[in-house]
């Protein structure tokens, strides 16, 4: 085990960061929906899948390429989110958040089942855009160029969202609206609209991650279903309500997971859960969360 060459180890750290970037984008949206709208959005993985599929459909049926898709897909997926929030989730506000979980779980199942029904379970290939094809040699290490793009794009998006939420009043408004929507409404804020748009935006983020993922993974109906609980774990480890926490945790866990893949591959599926148990035993509200 100790015979792992240093290059491989370094490479793993980079790869881990890249996976971590995915976790960060997904958990960011989830964390906002979860921490601020009080919805356990189980459909987040399904929206990620939807993002990849819309991207693929645009390419194969409309001929729209990767770059425009990067903008169009989040809008499309976000719009779906807006409809879902408006028509369904908004009616569940104020009751036990388990019902939101049940609903989004059902939605995820239905989306996944529906896509398998229509497109089959095997999935479809999506080509890496020309500009990002090829590999980068870092010394003896070979890494695909596209992965570097993923990490750059994700980190930029994460930072932008973080600034928006933490450095503007928006975050405070959202949190307050979750706690006591009627009072915030009485203060003159259109809470339902705020909530709907936030949900749409976060779901759009998942769609964005889906576009990033399409060229790496198969565009397949089940691509989001196992990811979802990992992303949940990331959010919880980071601490509910902490946007920055979920970004940092996402990246860090990507690296931890990557290194586990070198030393004890079988453990890579549970290392995140192990970390979660340890963190929660020591810090009941996660790494960056605050206790209420």
């Amino acid at each position, binding site marked *: 085990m100790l015979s792992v060459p240093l290059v*491989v180890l370094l490479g793993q750290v980079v*790869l881990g960061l890249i*996976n971590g970037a995915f976790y960060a984008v997904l958990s960011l949206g989830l964390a906002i929906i979860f921490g601020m709208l009080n919805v356990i959005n189980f459909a987040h993985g399904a929206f990620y899948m939807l993002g990849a599929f819309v991207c693929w459909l645009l390419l194969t049926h409309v001929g729209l390429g990767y770059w425009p898709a990067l903008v169009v897909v989040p809008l499309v997926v976000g719009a779906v989110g807006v409809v879902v929030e408006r028509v369904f989730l908004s009616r569940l506000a104020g009751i036990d958040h388990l019902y939101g979980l049940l609903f989004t779980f059902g939605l995820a199942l239905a989306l996944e089942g529906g896509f398998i029904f229509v497109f089959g379970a095997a999935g479809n290939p999506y080509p890496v855009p020309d500009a990002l094809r090829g590999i980068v040699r870092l010394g003896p290490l070979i890494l695909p160029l596209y992965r570097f793009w993923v990490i750059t794009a994700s980190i930029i998006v994460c930072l932008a969202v973080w600034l928006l939420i933490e450095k503007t009043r928006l975050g405070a408004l959202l949190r307050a609206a979750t706690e006591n929507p009627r009072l915030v409404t009485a203060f003159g804020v259109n809470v339902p609209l705020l909530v709907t748009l936030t949900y749409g935006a976060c779901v759009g983020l998942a769609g964005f991650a889906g576009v990033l993922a399409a060229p790496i993974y*198969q565009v397949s109906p089940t691509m989001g279903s196992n990811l979802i609980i990992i992303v949940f774990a990331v959010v919880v480890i980071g601490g509910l309500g902490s946007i920055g926490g979920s970004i940092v945790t996402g990246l860090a866990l990507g690296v931890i997971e990557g290194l586990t893949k070198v030393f004890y591959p079988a453990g890579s599926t549970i290392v995140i859960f192990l970390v979660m148990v340890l963190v929660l035993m020591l810090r009941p509200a996660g790494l960056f969360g605050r206790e209420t």
Partner: protein
Amino acid sequence: DQAKIGVLTDMTGQFSHEAGPGAVAAVELAVEDFGGTVLGEPVEVVVGDHQNKPEVAASLAQEWYESDGVTMINDLINSGIALSVAQIAEQKGGIAIVNGSGSSKLTGAGCTPNSIHYAYDTYALANGTANHLVDDGHKSWFFLTADYAFGHALEADASAIVEAAGGSVEGNVLYPIETADHSAFMLQAQASPAEVVAIAGSGTTFINAVKSAQEFGLTDSGKLVAGLLVWLTDVKALGLPAAQGMVLTNGFYWDRDDDTRAFAEKFKAKTGKMPHMGDAGNYSSTLHYLKAVEAAGTTDADAVMAKMRELPVEDFFAHGGKIREDGRMVHDMYVYQVKTPAESTGEWDVYKLIETIPGDKAFRPLSESDCPLVKAD
């Protein structure tokens, strides 16, 4: 005595592209081609979606055999389910034919007098590819193995053969089956001096592994990728650019001869896609079953099983195929290589044949079997 065939498969879940609707179509085609009736009664086909839940499969199988008059259950993708339905077939006096699952336990510790393992098994697949490549001079191997019993079996079988044939295993990495991202393992494969990177896994994770191999330039850097269990649908899902050059063993390819092409056309007309070895196995085994029922003059499981063993399997899938006492249907296997996009002339033109392995060399010899039925002899 009415023959009633149950297709128990994954219609809508993760394996539905490997079996599911294709399996149903194949069985229905076989019944049609047989004439639709046997022993003067129409042959009925029922379909069950086990959703990959052993309890659902077991309940359904029990109900089918016990009260619905199902005489034979076919396909049975998902090894846990195949093993448990084989037991139920024995208890209830039904017949189970496995085409979907590849676990060689079905003819080993889990064998029963009422079950047949038909299209392929992990041993045969590993055996074909490993033998061929080592003989071809690719002696050093690296395994990328799905970390579960099925992957371990594939790897163990293949590495034994590699070593027996004078090759060497340079290393391996076990990837958890939930892994979506295989890049970490690719780095290890890349760093290994081995010539062959063999992927011992199946389904979506297999597809993702091959994709990363391509992305990380494994083939470009002169390594050969071998798939130890590859369905035609996997190659279609990957696309030739990603799958090209891969070496694999299979029990069936539609473009082998006129008979296979004729079947493939019919199958395609019905389902819109070309059949793979599971589909062909489902067809062939159903046909063989019906012939045996006719010959036995009854649907009684023991009598039909006896006839199925007695009659040779003779159709486009297998010529002179034979069912051994451990339930293994022995037939020729084939080693293929995935064509490059340039070589391919059509959507489904993806394999070129590089070796045919005769049936008696393809499967695990009875002498190595741990099936109690064999020892009893």
